[in-house]
């Protein structure tokens, strides 16, 4: 298999632009918004300008290399300056640049105009997942790398990524948007700088802790569009993809109602009494999705960077102290108080105390977590235009 790929690689190299082996692309995608198509147009325009200048310059150079060589007996000329040609090859590029700047300015102005948006989605970057909040609807969730990709991407996992559908470009819960609707995005981050990029939308925008950025889009074709974080944000920077599903407006409305229903179910889960077994079972899943990437799937941690869970003094010590650390975070440990709902929080807390080689024997109920979470002051974002 490997030698075959190696061979294919060599053949591709030899042909330079070999025939398509897989579904890779060579050029920028046109995308599904008016802005992304404008950007694509600009890209092609400047690419062709460069090609023509290249043909001119390299043409002259290679003509000269071929004909003006000593081995052909060519005698060197004696010129070494000419104000006239210097002026010509200063003015012509200037004119070309001005001609390029005009359409670029037009597109830039259009991209910047977020006015008359019909809805707003707030995007928060976390190490290493995205939080989406549909302002004014109560829809709010986290989106992280799907389980199949996450398993396959572990060091020497033994799983061939080619067998994983949409490897590294699939999430557990995609962002859903209506088509033909001007959507304003607000971007911020909880820990370090991230950058939210879906190539089909035509742009990326940095998410910066403590600051709000904005951008807009209006998708005109229903479909699934994938992207990734594009600002180095720590060890799992390569593993926080973005999936956007654009659907017809009525379907979207239906989806929103569904999500609101789910929120009610979740709220109920937070109030009912859970058995320890249910908490541990649920907690194992939550651990795999939220904790395993640093503390390792078996809880052994990473010496010097990420403490082990197994036999940890904090995890096996006082329950309140452990819950407090998870709620508020410490150093590189994110504050999960805002990230996990009460049921998941209680579940994972119970799981780590009674799994991964630990056996403290106690449990915490979602209702207790809910009370603790309520005490955390919520961060209020100013959502005015700048």
């Amino acid at each position: 298999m490997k030698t075959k790929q190696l061979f294919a690689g060599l053949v591709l190299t030899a042909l330079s632009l070999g025939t398509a082996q897989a579904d890779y692309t060579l050029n920028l995608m046109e995308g599904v918004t008016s802005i992304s198509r404008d950007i694509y147009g600009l890209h092609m325009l400047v690419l062709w300008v460069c090609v023509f200048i290249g043909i001119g310059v390299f043409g002259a150079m290679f003509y000269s290399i071929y004909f003006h060589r000593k081995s052909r007996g060519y005698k060197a000329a004696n010129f070494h300056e000419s104000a006239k040609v210097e002026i010509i090859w200063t003015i012509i590029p200037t004119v070309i640049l001005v001609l390029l700047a005009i359409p670029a300015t037009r597109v830039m102005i259009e991209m910047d105009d977020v006015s008359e948006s019909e809805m707003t989605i707030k995007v928060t970057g976390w190490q290493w997942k995205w939080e989406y909040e549909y302002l004014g609807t109560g829809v709010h969730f986290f989106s992280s790398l799907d389980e199949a990709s996450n398993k396959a991407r572990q060091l020497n996992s033994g799983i061939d990524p080619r067998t994983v559908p949409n490897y590294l470009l699939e999430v557990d819960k995609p962002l859903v948007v209506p088509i033909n609707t001007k959507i304003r995005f607000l971007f911020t981050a909880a820990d370090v700088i991230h950058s939210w990029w879906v190539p089909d939308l035509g742009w990326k925008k940095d998410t910066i802790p403590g600051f709000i950025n904005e951008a807009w889009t209006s998708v005109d074709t229903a479909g699934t569009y994938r992207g990734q974080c594009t600002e180095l944000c720590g060890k799992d920077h390569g593993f926080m993809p973005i999936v956007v599903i654009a659907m017809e407006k009525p379907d979207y409305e239906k989806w929103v109602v569904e999500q609101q229903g789910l929120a009610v179910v979740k709220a109920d889960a937070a109030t009912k009494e859970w058995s320890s077994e249910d908490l541990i079972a649920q907690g194992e899943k939550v651990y795999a999705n939220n904790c395993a990437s640093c503390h390792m799937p078996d809880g052994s941690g990473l010496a010097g960077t990420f403490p082990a869970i197994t036999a940890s003094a904090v995890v096996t010590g006082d329950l309140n102290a452990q819950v407090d650390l998870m709620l508020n975070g410490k150093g590189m440990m994110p504050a999960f108080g805002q990230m996990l709902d009460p049921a998941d929080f209680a579940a994972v807390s119970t799981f780590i105390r009674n799994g991964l080689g630990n056996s403290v024997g106690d449990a915490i109920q979602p209702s207790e977590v809910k009370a603790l979470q309520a005490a955390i002051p919520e961060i209020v974002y100013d959502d005015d235009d700048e």
Partner: protein
Amino acid sequence: MSAVTAEHDHDEHHDHGPEKGFLRWIVTTNHKDIGTLYLFFALAMFFVGGTMALIIRAELFEPGMQFVTPQFFNSMTTMHALVMVFGAVMPAFVGFANWLIPMMIGAPDMALPRMNNMSFWMLVAGVMMLASTLFMEGGAPASGWTLYPPLVLQTGAALPFAIFSVHLLGISSIMGAINIIATIFNMRAPKMTLMKMPLFVWTWLITAFLLIAIMPVFAGAVTMLLTDRFFDTSFFDAAGGGDPVLYQHIFWFFGHPEVYVMILPTFGIASTIIPVFARKALFGYSSMVYATAAIAFLSFIVWAHHMFTVGMPLSGELYFMYATMLIAIPTGVKIFNWTATMWRGSMTFETPMLFSIAFVVLFTLGGFTGLMMALAPIDFQYHDTYFIVAHFHYTLVPASVFILMAGGYFWLPKWTGNMYDERLGQLHFWLSAVSVNILFFPQHFLGLAGMPRRIPDYAVQFSDWNMVSSIGAFIFGFSQLMFVYIVVKTIKGGTGEKVTDEVWEGAAQHSLEWTLPSPVPYHTFATPPENIPTEHY
């Protein structure tokens, strides 16, 4: 031969050769010795940084994680960049400056020889301290060479060491720059007016001013990181009233001129080599000088084009777009001038010329992608993708590194008195020139297709071109071992053929160093030369 006679007339007890034994290399204040030290150190670091690059390319050969953890991968991208920029490319050009500037302007040595020794050893200390972070708890810095907060503040024990090594490297560079400026302004031969200096001297003069302006800025930025981490300041922490983007502005105010620090001396060497092998004077000497100065000036006012996506106001985006586009004009002038220098010359294609022509062609490609990403709206797609990686590697590897190789082949016969093996040199060139394109050209496709940079693993549609790129990387990396072999062989006697003083046909009409004997004596131009080459004015 006036220089040699002058040396014999020299005061007896002052006219000695190098110190005997190993100590020579520690205590030397001779510009040629220090130049050699810089060049060998740079070459060693080129292989250290190159090994890191090959670790990166090995991991990216296939999708999935095979060799390293993501954290170590990030350390590798960070350290590769820092080592290559501060340990390899910059010191290599300082090495050439040390060797050549005094000989090119007819001076006996650098103006401040003891400081010269100190700046070299401080560089070694700085790079060693940086390298030591690889063995620290929590690993080497893994936040990218830009060291952006808040991420960089998550670095383990390595952070203060990385910051102090930046301080050391900065002091070393500033001392080197002061020395170069002092030498050029005070020690030129009487007839060597500024506008008769070889282009390499001119580009280094301008580069030295850039260094003095920017290194303190970088030192300041990393010091603010240090106090943010250890002394509870909040320069870059919004929770305390600071701004993470402020760091980016400060960093790129340093960082953009910094990339020109690596490219301006490249222009200088190319402008020196091409006329010799075209047997024709450099076309548009004075416009080359003005273009260099213009590029240096522009480098200070375009920094935020590295930050188009941080959420600048529209007016900021437009200003930095227009300013950045302007760089194309002086850069274009340079490329046109090199082409015009070749035009109707009588060219031969020895290894230095081959590397120089490859530089002009491939640097132009890097310039084209530079123009593309100057257009702010499209940069919202290109930013932080492999398209950017391809762009800046085209402007650094087949540009700066190729020209460093060209310079090595060009002056080695002069320095050692021995000719290098031309056949091996040409083989080295063709292997490098072909593999560097296999390595970097596919990265354009990857970036356009949507692959972000600095990721240790990727979606499967990026597999093919990553594999091609990795194959190119390994061919390129191992080809460079040839260079070491050729250099060592040349020092040890080369082809056995003794070179003339001029080495290259007509070279003495271009620059002063070719009027000296080959190999060059330990001390040269104890008295300034009477006449200077007049090929350009």
